[in-house]
């Protein structure tokens, strides 16, 4: 678990640096939704528990990525009105609603 956290943190830093170097800003934004934590976490899970152990995590991530799409769309609306800090934190609710809702609808 500690290894996942450490490598996940490093992967986030790596992708964010690539995004920081990229321009124009919309292109750099692609790296804001990069699968940084996912790559690290799925790789370690596959090594420790085998591929079969990693597949359910990837299935959950597929649901979570619908939430991420909702988050980004809602943050576009909220950033204009409430600025980045408040808008981007409030947009977490969109992730929660979509990812949580889909998870409940599709069944655990």
């Amino acid at each position, binding site marked *: 678990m500690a290894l996942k956290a450490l490598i996940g*943190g490093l992967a986030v830093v790596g992708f964010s640096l690539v995004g920081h170097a990229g321009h124009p*800003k919309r292109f750099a934004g692609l790296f804001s939704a990069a699968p940084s934590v996912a790559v690290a976490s799925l790789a370690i899970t*596959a090594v420790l528990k085998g591929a079969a152990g990693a597949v359910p995590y*990837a299935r*959950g991530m597929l649901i979570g990525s619908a939430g991420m799409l909702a988050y980004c769309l809602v943050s576009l609306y909220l950033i204009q009105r409430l600025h980045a800090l408040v808008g981007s934190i409030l947009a977490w609710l969109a992730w929660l609603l979509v990812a949580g809702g889909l998870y409940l609808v599709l069944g655990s």
Partner: protein
Amino acid sequence: MEGDVLQQDDREPVAFDWSRLASVKPVELGLRFVFGTVIALVAAIAGTAAGPRFGGLFLAFPAVLPATLTLIEKKEGMTKAWADASGGVLGALGLGAFACTAVLLLRWNPIGALFLALVAWAAVSAGLYFLFRVTGLFLRQDRLVSKAGS
């Protein structure tokens, strides 16, 4: 949102300017590292406590985005933060392609599957970016969101 700033930025050629990394402060990197570490831990703990499918949800949680967008707004203004989130929409579609590829190929070969999943993320997100850029779909999207926001 300033439309002229956005259009001017959009006209820049796509490239990586690695010299910009010199302006990144250690505290900004530390903040991202902490958020990344925390969300990886949350995913692992949630997976152990409530099942791996539940834990997997957090592999696509936008933990770092509020910090990223706030820093961009502080340094470069709200329009640039908005543009970053706009790119994030396409990146999120790529994230879905990553997860799909991983689900389909992990049993075949985990390392190969994750490599191909990364390729799928890059192809879908960058492919959509260039499609939107070339066809002027960004402009339509901006008008739509501006109208909704006004």
